[in-house]
């Protein structure tokens, strides 16, 4: 049994207002007999509810005038077309037209030509990430590029072999 069940604090307002079903009311009453804490809470509920009555209220308006206003609002609303039936205000129409025009005349971004073969693709890809090359040691030996043709031939076994 949890704490809330043992201390039926949230049932105290309905208890004071005599709204609880008989079984729950009996359960709360039994609990109250044995629980000082809940008796104090019950006294608080009674004190607060008692102090809240009578209820402050404003002076009532002139009801004839009130109903006349209401009738006028009702007539006004009945006459007023629904929002989708209303003519669009000039400023809003002009704004929408301008936005549409700007959208239509916006500059078209120049598309990069798609790579047509593998070497072009490599160029495009590597060109975009040249910063990666800074992390490779080989780049620090650019002089080796001069001998690149020879290096490429190293793993080619000449016809006839050694």
């Amino acid at each position: 049994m949890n704490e809330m069940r043992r201390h039926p604090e949230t049932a105290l307002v309905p208890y004071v207002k005599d709204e609880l079903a008989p079984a729950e009311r009996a359960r709360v009453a039994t609990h109250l007999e044995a629980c000082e804490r809940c008796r104090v809470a019950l006294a608080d509920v009674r004190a607060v509810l008692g102090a809240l009555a009578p209820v402050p209220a404003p002076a009532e308006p002139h009801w004839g005038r009130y109903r006349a206003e209401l009738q006028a609002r009702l007539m006004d609303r009945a006459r007023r077309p629904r929002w989708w039936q209303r003519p669009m205000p000039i400023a809003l129409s002009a704004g929408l037209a301008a936005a549409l025009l700007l959208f239509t005349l916006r500059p078209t971004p120049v598309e990069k030509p798609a790579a047509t073969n593998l070497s072009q693709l490599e160029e495009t890809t590597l060109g975009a990430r040249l910063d990666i090359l800074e992390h490779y040691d080989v780049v620090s030996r650019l002089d080796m590029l001069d001998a690149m043709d020879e290096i490429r031939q190293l793993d080619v076994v000449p016809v006839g072999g050694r």
Partner: protein
Amino acid sequence: MGEAGLWVATDDSGVGWWATETVVSHERGDSSDEALCARVAAREEGAFDQLVERYQSRAYRLAWSLLRDTEDARDLSQEAFLRVYQSADRFRGESRFSTWFYRILVNLCLDHRRRRRWWQLATAHEREEDEVALVERQPTSEPDPGQRVSEAQTMTRLWAAVHRLSPQQRAAVVLSVQEQLTTAEIAAVLECSEPTVRVHLHRAVQALRRKLTP
């Protein structure tokens, strides 16, 4: 439904106290609220006026209790009646008409409060002054004026504290104390469960208890 209370006192300032001796009739048949609502839905002449006359006082008072502004109370209670007129054909009679009407009105008021919350924060100082003024407006024709003023001050302090509760707690307290609705009825109006209403009321009482002692 009959008149919900009795206007017991007022003065030049226009603020008085409302005794909570709620008289709620649940008559059925042709003169019931539900039947009247059906006649409004059928656009029967005079039905709407009848319904307004039955509820105008309660609607205005409830809106004022939630908003504490006479102009807003007037505006939103009228708006609630307009909503009833426009959607009367959608009232299926699954709940009492009063519950349905309260739901419309309370939702309008809570939405309005949410929208104007920044403004209320900005004018908090003025509100405090209004609350003090409310004490000064109490009728003082009691045998013991000193005690009467003290009680009035406690009430004013307490209702001012009610105004600072969360919107749901405030609505629950007003519906419970002022409109004398049961927990089940409040749950139907606020569209939440009964245990939730009990928690709202319990927390509200806890907060208000601290205001009882100056």
